């Protein structure tokens, strides 16, 4: 490594070059995701239905990925859902704000036809299971923003586990 403080005749040949790159962007999630995110700011999940296959996407990126048409009909979804599958994260990484180990689960909200990744808390990591019924816990009203950060986490809602057949096709 070269180092400005040690540069001079005594140091060895240059073998490394530091080239930091920083670029600034204006990020836009688009029309459909903005609606989803704005609903999060009110503590609500809003999905969109495909006019062709009638499946409900949450969050919708504005199109049905299989039919290639715009999803326009908005559908308000339940605050509860089912863990379809999960993993326990035990690897530290940059920007991580949650204490490891923690549970990342695919959650199928009631009324939706796709699952999305969410954090599960209030259950020991060795008791998490497929089919667990969970509900969203939101941040305090004052802290709600149009961001996934508005969902504090999901926790067991006390209902009986969903049978495997009920979510088998959403794995």
């Amino acid at each position, binding site marked *: 490594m070269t180092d400005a403080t040690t540069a001079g005749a005594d140091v060895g040949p240059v073998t490394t070059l530091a080239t930091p790159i920083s670029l*600034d962007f204006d990020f836009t999630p688009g029309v459909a995701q903005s609606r989803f995110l704005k609903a999060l700011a009110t503590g609500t999940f809003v999905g969109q239905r495909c006019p062709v296959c009638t499946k409900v996407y949450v969050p919708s990126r504005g*199109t049905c990925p299989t039919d*290639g048409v715009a999803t326009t009909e908005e559908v308000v979804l339940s605050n509860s859902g089912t863990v379809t599958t999960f993993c326990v994260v035990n690897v530290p990484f940059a920007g991580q704000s949650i204490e490891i180990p923690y549970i990342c689960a695919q959650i199928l909200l009631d009324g939706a036809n796709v699952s999305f990744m969410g954090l599960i808390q209030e259950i020991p990591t060795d008791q998490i299971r497929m089919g667990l019924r969970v509900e969203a816990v939101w941040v305090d009203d004052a802290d709600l923003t149009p961001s996934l950060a508005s969902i504090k986490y999901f926790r067991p809602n006390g209902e009986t586990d969903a049978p495997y057949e009920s979510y088998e096709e959403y794995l």
Partner: protein
Amino acid sequence: MSAPSGTVRPVSVASFAQSPNIRRDDQRNEVEGLLPVIAEVFGNIGITKDDVDFICSGSTDYLIGGPFSFVMALDAVGVWPPRAESHVEMDGAFALYEAWTLLQEGEIDAALVYSFGRSSLGDLNEILTLQLDPYYMAPLWPDIVSLSALQARALIDAGKATEADFAEVASRSRRDALANPKAQVAKDVAVDVLLQDPYVVEPLRRHALPPITDGAAAIVLAAGDKATAWSERPVWISGIDHRIETHALGARDLTSSPSTALAAQHAGVADGKVDIAEIHAPFAHQEIILRQAMGLDASVTINPSGGALAANPMMSAGLIRIGEAASRIAAGQADRAVAHATSGPCLQQNLVCVLEGA
């Protein structure tokens, strides 16, 4: 090096669509922007995604500032059931080349090609610097305008063009763009007025630079029965080729474009009279270099769409040239046209496509 061998299978540009080219599409994400373009390119000829056998797209992650932007864009097509599909991190014109190659094998008859990019999200001057040699050039952050200005100066010094010639190109391009509803910069301004513009980087004045553009484009290629069924007057690709030059600017003659000349030769530009040419010259002086490289004389109508000086959506501007040229043949305004696409600093890589009406 071998020339393209064997007989070229006739492939037609069966349909073309492009989004409005605008300075900043701050409403829609990539998928939402692409969706109407895909719908239009199929709708033009009354087909659906089920009628194409292969899909190829062109885009770059660096415009959006995150990896895998092409993955999300696939949602605009709806690749279900699964499709044969590929992606190049290049202008859509090169995606078209990949699709055309597959069509040459004779096992498939139709392909969808699309490209997209929002140049407005970041600072394009900084982003494009990352295309440069990462050891010697990129760390100095030379911007694309400055590098193009080095080329323009070389052209002037060599006596091959003047600043008035650059203004002439810009004036004509923006005037012709008045007839192009998809153009971003369209106006009728005389050369002597343009020459009053301040320099951005001397010797390039404001008018010699392309606009920053958000946009997307798509083309359907067809062969065999599909080509004749989908078009009353099919526009055939009679030749297509592309070539790259060295990256070292200091080892190139910036006043000429040998890669374009080679591609034009292999694409057969000189095999017949050229009526119009759609040239992807982001900077005004580059049109002069490219015309010379392709041997296009004063009888050829250059960039009737306004070209890249009227709208320069990164990753689509080359594909749009092919679409624009084909559209004019389909409309009966030309019988034989040349389309060109470029990539990299100072015209490093160039593609030439020759199109002919039936």
